[in-house]
Structures are given as structure tokens and as C-alpha cells.
């Protein structure tokens, strides 16, 4: 990619640099920038001193508490506060002699050449739900009860935990301190790729024993029923006659929140003014009621769920609005957390509404938890809410009051403080940030359980029974090449995966392990038949990145893997269909891999389709057809525009790109980064998604490929602040034979039985910030002659 600066622009560059560094700021852009920072000494103290104190104590407490570091005198508060501010891995010799982080501790890491990366077999076990702060004494001194659950049989072959390693949220007292020695790396096996079967022979007789067998049976894949028409719900939900499209979720039966929801009769939307409940009315939508937000600017409501007559809204918390007049009526007994002391706290709240009378939504209760909103899932009527809560700042912590540094919750007017047993802490404390996970029964508007893990979460994947959180981590190990003398630090990325079980609102930390490489997004993971499959791309400073697929059992122990695929490339999309994994990597070319997962111990690459474009989102369309949305690119890897493809995966050993449509004048679709923004529905043969400033609707038939139907182009007024968020809120859905295009400010309806003719429009909220919408049709496109149809058909837009 060509990033050279034009030489005539040198003057611009110099001037810009001067402006950037100007103090006070000369650029409007830097208005509000606070150049105030703690002094160097203060910063070091807050990070370093606590680490030093911990180190000294660890020497004393090591025998008693194993790997965990603790302070026995003082309160639980002090201990937790110190744990919270430790941000570095303990290294011997740190802080003695003025140096820290001397990397001599890992002498044993003799590693062969390119396999400097520790292998993934060091999966470790986890004690179910245990409190891992060995804070018995301090806890009791504070009047807290330190509860230790029984050691769960899930602890991996570790007996007393002697093999426990990184990635362990577990019980310290069970484990004598192991030495900090890295697991010896094993040479990674050569990638196993099934040879491409020759065209002449359909029979598998020629293939050698150690490659994937190609059964003559067709590999059955789960049908592409990803969009469930109705949410699974124990309470009898009102069912409406028409077929309708629901949120595009990853796992059937696991709902994901969104800014637009429908139950087949009503449409629920969220924008910067609040929530609207609109009756679809067969294409003549009518707003029945609104729930207005109280903040005077910025989005309050993030997203929501509808389940029968219960509308669950996830929003910003109000805790920082203390003292603001307009909040009072909403604030008291409103599920707001009563923080103590100074300092800015973020929290996430849930408003549960009874909407049995759609014209008069009635709030049942509000619940809150500390931290900024990360993600959520709903299974049945149980909401699982995740937020990330960082304890930063200087002077915000009162060591004597845990309320200043543990996650807090509020349910109506009731205040809840995390108990030690609700918190799990890993052996190396690297951050003072919690991932707070709660289970909420929305039918009762109450918390069922909560669990907080000290660590950051990057990706959330949920199956019907488990929640998997991943954390990107980086480590430096000292390695030396075989035959050499010098050690060098080798910096690489890996993923810590933690499994939490979900059952009826109860959240329990079950197991965690580390996998080499980093995941792309939630679609990189899939749980099936008691195994977790995960695709990662390595990220290290010594060699080319490669992609691998790992299979872990429910103890998060690796049972199988296929590694070192697609060197130099990065995973862009992934989808699992039954026992086949499809993923796309890209840098110049775009191989679409298919991997056989029928034997969890021996995942095998079945095929590798090499094309120049790449997909950022994959979706099972129907049996034998896999849809991809992404970018068209040329041989050099330069992108040319948005594209959609239909792959024929009826034979996963030989996936073909059957149809392709390049939308050359369109750059970007938000659907590539948010799968909820795309609608793919075989029932109506329709694919619809936002693209640049339009919402695009395409029809598909296996016989004639993609057919552009319509693009709704939407214009926003200049007054509107954040156009990116606005375009991110575009959605499309159908109810019966009416298609609804939903923008944050309006709903537009089209008749699917009559060439998508416009029917009606309605404004949502005041509509003040928005200008207008217009729709138009694509240019006429004739059916190609039979003679023109080639195996891959590409259609390019002209100007549209």
C-alpha cells in the first residue's frame, strides 16, 4: 500500500506538527485537552511502589499462600488496593539494585528456531466459583467472610494444582508456588492439509492415511437457521401471524441486544432522544409511545431486548449525575449506585419495562453495575450483562472502604457490594480493571448472581450454556536459539480464554487457558459437542504471522489443533457450520479455508480457495451456500470497493465462489464490523445492509445470482454531531411482505410484493436533527443470456 507523502505537502506537514505541539492549543480540535498529568515521581510511585511492596511480602507469604501475594497485616481493603495496583509480572531482583524487570529468570527457555512460541498445551484448570483472594486474615479483620468453594474436579490433572500456570483463576491455597518457568515449547507439527482431490477422481482411494479422509458421504452441516424467527422464552410470548426477521445473532437461542428490535408486530428503536415503540401496521407505522432519555446530550440508551411483554433497555448509568436537578425524579430508588468518595465512576444500567400496554410502557425497576458497557446476551428471560470497571486515579481509593475499589451493584434502591467470593483474581496482576458479569432475571427484575474477574475482556462469545471471554495478552519471554549463546526478549501475543457457565442467571467461572495468537471477533469461536473451537492469528515480533485453529475441551485443555496456516496473513472473518470451520485470511490474496472438525483431536484443512477479494463477514445462507460480505481487491491487495459473494460449499473440500457482486462506488459497510447491521434471509431471498450513506437491498437466486433491488439513500443535516454513529444505527427488517428500513430518525416502508415500492414513512422522535430521506432504484439490469453465464459472474455497478 502506498503511503508516501507528497513532497509539496511538506509545508503542510511542518505546520501541522507545529500546531499539534502548540501549548496552549491553537487548534479547535484540541479544545478540552487537559495537559495536566501527574508528576513522573507520582506515576512511578503509583505503579511501581505498590509492586515493590507486594514483592517484599510475597517472599514471606509465598509458602502460605502459594503464588498469591498478600499483605497479612492491615485490612482486606489494603490488600485488595495493593493487588489492584500491581501491574507487572513479578521478576526476581526487581527493585533491588535500582533495576527492575531484569529478564534473567527464564534461563530454561531453550527453544528451537521458529518455534520460539510456547506451545498451547499449558492449558490450566480453574476452580469453580472459588474466591481466589487468599485474604482469610485480612478479610476477617474487615468483617468479610472469605469463602472458599470446594476444589472443583475441573482442575486439570493438577491434583493440588501443582501444574497450574498462567490463565488461572483459581484457589491459591491448593497450589504450592511453582517456579516461574515457561512450558517447554514443542516443535509445531507441519500443517496438515488434505491434498486437493484431482478432478478426475471423486473416490478417496488415492489419499494417504494421514490426511483428512474424504468421505463419500456428504458432510452434513447444520442448516443455516441462524436467524430464529422467535426468541426462545419460557413465558408464553404473544405470537403474531406474520413471518418476520429478527436480529442477526451468532448463536441460535442466544439473543444479542440491538438498537432496533421487532417482535413481528411492533418495532422498538433507540436513538439519541430515547426509545420509540411503533406499531408496524402492515407498512403504515404508527408511533405508540416514547421513553425519553434524561441526559441533555449524548446517547444514553445503548441497545435493548424485547421478550414477550418485557422490554429490557441497556443504558449508561446515572451515577455521575448526582446533584443535577433534572435527574432527581429519576434518580431516587432508581437502581443508581451510591458511590462513596470523589472521583468519576462509570456504570451500566438496565431498565426493565412492562410493555403489555404498548402505549403506556411502565418501568418495573432499574438495576445497575459498575463499569462501562461491554456486551450482553439474553437466553430465555435471563440477561447476562458485562461491563468493564477500571479503578484508576490517584486518591480515589480509600483503603478502609471496599466500596471504593470493588464492583458495586444496585437493584432498585438496594445497594450491593461485591463479596470476596464474587471476585476472581489471576496469578499475575496486570491491570486494575474488572470484567463484571451479572445474571439478571428480567421477569423478576432482580439479580440472580454476579461474578467479577480482574482482567480485561476483548471479545465475548456465548453459546447457550457458556460464556467465553477472551483477553489479548502480550508477553516477553527470554529465548535463545538452539546453538546460540545470547538470549533475547521475544514479544508475542496470546489469548486468555475464560469459560463461565450460564444457567438460569447463575454465572460461574469454570476454566481458563491460554492460546497462542489473537482472535478476530466473536465469530472466531464456536462451541459444539462439548468442545470450543477457536481461530487465532499470531502476533509477535520475530516472525511472520500465521493462523491456527485450536480445539479445547470444557476444561479449556487443548485436544487438537491445526497451525501455521496462511503465513503473513490475518483472519478477516470466520464462521462455523456444524463441524466445518470456514475462515478467510487476507493480505494480498484471500484464501477461504475450510477445516474439518469432526474429530476434535485432529482438525484438518479440507480446502483453500484462493481469490483476490476478501470477506469480512461470513453467513450460512442455505444448505450448500455460504454468503460473504467484504472488499474486492486486486492482485496487489489494494482494495477496490465493497463486494458480496456467494460461495458454493456443498463440497467443503472444494469451495467455489459461485456469484459475486462488486459495488464499486461503495466503500464501506458498517455490517463488516457489526453483524447485527446485516440482514440475510433465505425465506425472502434477501440480503440487505448499510453501505456508505445508503441502505442497500439485494435479492439472490441460485440460478441468476445477485440482483440489485434498491438503495435507500439517506441524507443527514450538517447539524447532526456524529454521522458515524448515525449510519451505524441503520437497520432493515421485514414483517410479512413489508420491508422496513429503519434510520435513527425515521422508518420507511416498502412493498415486497410490488417491486419494493415505497409505501409510507414515519418520524421517530422530534426528527429535528435530521434532514430527509430519499430512495431510488438501481438502474435497470437485464437478465444475462444463457451464453454469458460463466462460473463466476461479476457485476459492476456503474455510478449509482
Amino acid at each position, binding site marked *: *500500500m*502506498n*503511503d508516501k*507523502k*507528497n513532497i*509539496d*505537502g511538506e509545508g*503542510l*506537514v511542518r*505546520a*501541522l*506538527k507545529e500546531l*499539534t505541539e502548540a*501549548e496552549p492549543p*491553537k*487548534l*479547535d*480540535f*484540541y479544545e478540552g*485537552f*487537559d*495537559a495536566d*498529568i501527574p508528576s*513522573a515521581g507520582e506515576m512511578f510511585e503509583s*505503579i*511501581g511502589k505498590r509492586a515493590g511492596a507486594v514483592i517484599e511480602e510475597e517472599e514471606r507469604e509465598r509458602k502460605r499462600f502459594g503464588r498469591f501475594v498478600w499483605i497479612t497485616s492491615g485490612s482486606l481493603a489494603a490488600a485488595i488496593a495493593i493487588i489492584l495496583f500491581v*501491574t*507487572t509480572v513479578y521478576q526476581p531482583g526487581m527493585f533491588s539494585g*535500582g*533495576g*527492575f*524487570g*531484569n*529478564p534473567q529468570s527464564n534461563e530454561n527457555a531453550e527453544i528451537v528456531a521458529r518455534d520460539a512460541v510456547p506451545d498451547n498445551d499449558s492449558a490450566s484448570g480453574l476452580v469453580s466459583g472459588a474466591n481466589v483472594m487468599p485474604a482469610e486474615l485480612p478479610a476477617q479483620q474487615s468483617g468479610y467472610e472469605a469463602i472458599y468453594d470446594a476444589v472443583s474436579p475441573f482442575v486439570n490433572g493438577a491434583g493440588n494444582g501443582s501444574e497450574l500456570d498462567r490463565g488461572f483463576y483459581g484457589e491459591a491455597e491448593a497450589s504450592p508456588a511453582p517456579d516461574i518457568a515457561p512450558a517447554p515449547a514443542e516443535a509445531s507439527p507441519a500443517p496438515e492439509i488434505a491434498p486437493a482431490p484431482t478432478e478426475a477422481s471423486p473416490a478417496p482411494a488415492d489419499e494417504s492415511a494421514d490426511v483428512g479422509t474424504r468421505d463419500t458421504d456428504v458432510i452434513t452441516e447444520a442448516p443455516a437457521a441462524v436467524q430464529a424467527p422467535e426468541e426462545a422464552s419460557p413465558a408464553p410470548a404473544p405470537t403474531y401471524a406474520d413471518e418476520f426477521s429478527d436480529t442477526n445473532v451468532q448463536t441460535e437461542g442466544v439473543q444479542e441486544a440491538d438498537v432496533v428490535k421487532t417482535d413481528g408486530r411492533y418495532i422498538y428503536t433507540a436513538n439519541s432522544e430515547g426509545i420509540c415503540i411503533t406499531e408496524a401496521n402492515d407498512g403504515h407505522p404508527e408511533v405508540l409511545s416514547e421513553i425519553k432519555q434524561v441526559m441533555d446530550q449524548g446517547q444514553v440508551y445503548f441497545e435493548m431486548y424485547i421478550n414477550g411483554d418485557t422490554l429490557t433497555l441497556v443504558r449508561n448509568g446515572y451515577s455521575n449525575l448526582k446533584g443535577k436537578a433534572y435527574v432527581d425524579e429519576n434518580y431516587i430508588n432508581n437502581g443508581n449506585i451510591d458511590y462513596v468518595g470523589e472521583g*468519576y465512576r462509570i456504570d451500566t444500567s438496565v431498565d426493565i419495562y412492562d410493555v403489555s400496554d404498548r402505549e403506556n410502557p411502565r418501568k418495573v425497576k432499574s438495576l445497575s453495575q459498575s463499569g462501562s458497557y*461491554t*456486551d450482553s446476551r439474553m437466553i430465555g428471560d435471563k440477561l447476562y450483562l458485562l461491563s468493564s470497571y*477500571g479503578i*484508576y*486515579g490517584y486518591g480515589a481509593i480509600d483503603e478502609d472502604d471496599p466500596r471504593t475499589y470493588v464492583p458495586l451493584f444496585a437493584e432498585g434502591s438496594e445497594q450491593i457490594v461485591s463479596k470476596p467470593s464474587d471476585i476472581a483474581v489471576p496469578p499475575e496482576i*496486570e*491491570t486494575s480493571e474488572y470484567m463484571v458479569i451479572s445474571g439478571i432475571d428480567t421477569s423478576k427484575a432482580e439479580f440472580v448472581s454476579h461474578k467479577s474477574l480482574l482482567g*480485561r475482556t*476483548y471479545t465475548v462469545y456465548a453459546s447457550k450454556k457458556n460464556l467465553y471471554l477472551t483477553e489479548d495478552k502480550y508477553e*516477553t519471554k527470554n529465548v535463545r536459539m538452539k546453538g546460540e549463546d545470547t538470549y533475547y*526478549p521475544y514479544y508475542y501475543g496470546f489469548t486468555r480464554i475464560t469459560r463461565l457457565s450460564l444457567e438460569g442467571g447463575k454465572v460461574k467461572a469454570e476454566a481458563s487457558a491460554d492460546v497462542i495468537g489473537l482472535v478476530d471477533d466473536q465469530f472466531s469461536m464456536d462451541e459444539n459437542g462439548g468442545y470450543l473451537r477457536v481461530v487465532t492469528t499470531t502476533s509477535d515480533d520475530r516472525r511472520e504471522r500465521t493462523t491456527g485453529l485450536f480445539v479445547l475441551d470444557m476444561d479449556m485443555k487443548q485436544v487438537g489443533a491445526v497451525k501455521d496456516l496462511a503465513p503473513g496473513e490475518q483472519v478477516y472473518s470466520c464462521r462455523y457450520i456444524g463441524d466445518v470451520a470456514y475462515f478467510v485470511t487476507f493480505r494480498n490474496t484471500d484464501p477461504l479455508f475450510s477445516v474439518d472438525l469432526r474429530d476434535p483431536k485432529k482438525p484438518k484443512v479440507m480446502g483453500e480457495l484462493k481469490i483476490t477479494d476478501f470477506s469480512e463477514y461470513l453467513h450460512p445462507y442455505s444448505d450448500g451456500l455460504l454468503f460473504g460480505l467484504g*472488499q474486492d481487491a486486486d492482485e496487489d491487495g*489494494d*482494495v*477496490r470497493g465493497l463486494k458480496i459473494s456467494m460461495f458454493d460449499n456443498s463440497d467443503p473440500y472444494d469451495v467455489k465462489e459461485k456469484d459475486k457482486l462488486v459495488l464499486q*462506488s461503495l*466503500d*464501506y459497510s458498517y455490517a*463488516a*464490523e457489526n453483524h447485527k447491521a446485516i440482514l440475510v434471509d433465505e425465506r425472502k431471498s434477501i440480503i440487505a445492509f448499510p453501505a456508505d*450513506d445508503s441502505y442497500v437491498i439485494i435479492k439472490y437466486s441460485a440460478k441468476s445470482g445477485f440482483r440489485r433491488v434498491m438503495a435507500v439513500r439517506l441524507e443527514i443535516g450538517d447539524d447532526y454531531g*456524529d*454521522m*458515524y454513529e448515525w*449510519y451505524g444505527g441503520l437497520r432493515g427488517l421485514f414483517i410479512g411482505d413489508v420491508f422496513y428500513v429503519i434510520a435513527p430518525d425515521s422508518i420507511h416502508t416498502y412493498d415486497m410484493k410490488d417491486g419494493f415500492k415505497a409505501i409510507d414513512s414515519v418520524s421517530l422522535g422530534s426528527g429535528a436533527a435530521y434532514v430527509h430521506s430519499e430512495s431510488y432504484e438501481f438502474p435497470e439490469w437485464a437478465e444475462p443470456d444463457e451464453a454469458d453465464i460463466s462460473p463466476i459472474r461479476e457485476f459492476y455497478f456503474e455510478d449509482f
Partner: protein
Amino acid sequence: MEATREFFEELYAAHGVGVKRFIFTQARRDADATDDIFQNTWESVFRYLHTLRDGAKAKSWLYSIAKNEALRYFSRSGKRGLTGLSSLDSEDAPEPIDEVAGDFPDAIADADRLAALMGKLSGAEQQVLLLRYSYDMSLSEIAELTGANHNTVKSVARRATIKLRKYAEVES
């Protein structure tokens, strides 16, 4: 490099504000995100200081940590660092060119006058220009950071420089 307290403090004293300003540029002018990322950055610096081999590279090493922390922060939270990213203006043809060739009027080379002109650009346009030209981030890096499509970032940069030139010409 020997990782000492003095070295840490030296780096911090020399680059603390600059790093914070860099983070601010990436963080949609969100003061709280800036503070969080700033904290995370120095924690990581503390952790990895012993891996810094060449003192001369300290500044770019620092900034790359700050960039990675911002990236992690935004990819995790789903928030994006680009303000008001918008589509192409209808007048602009979607040409896939890299940079804008041609002369820049003198107005642009003068910092104070440039400041006034920059104020006419949208938040996204200013942000892309600053990251690109002040902080030498490549378009791919900016795309990665903001989650926007590479081409979109390219077109925003292109439109911004075209506008700047237009405004400067109008002025003179």
C-alpha cells in the same frame, strides 16, 4: 537498556504530555478514554521497559505502545476513535488515488492561518490529518485504529486536503 526508575521517570518527563496529546487525538477528544488509555500506556511501559533495547528508539516505542493501548481500548469497547466519519461527498468521484499532488498555497504553510482553516474541517477530517501528518500514522494504521475501512480513511484524508486547499485559495 537497564530498566531503572530514573529511566522511567526520564521518559515520562520528556514525553508524558506529548503521549497524552497523541492519545487525545486518537480518542475522539474523549477525556475519560484519554485518561484510561494514558494510564494503561504507562503501566505497559513499566512492564516492558526492560525489553527496550535501543534508547534512541524510545520515543517511537512509547508512541507505539500508546497506539496499541488505544487500539485495544476501542476494539474492546466497540467504540471507535473517529469522529463523524461520513461518506463521500456526492461531488467527489471515488478515485482510488493515494495522495493529493500539486502546490499548497502559502496559507497552509503558516501555522496560525492553518489553524483557522483547520477549524473549518469536520472532526473526522481534522483527526485523520493530524494522525497522518503530525504523527506519521499510515492510513492502514488509522483504519485499524478507528475500525473504518481503509478506503474510507483514504477518502477522508483526500477530501480534507482538497478542502484545505480550496479554503486557502479562497482566502488568497
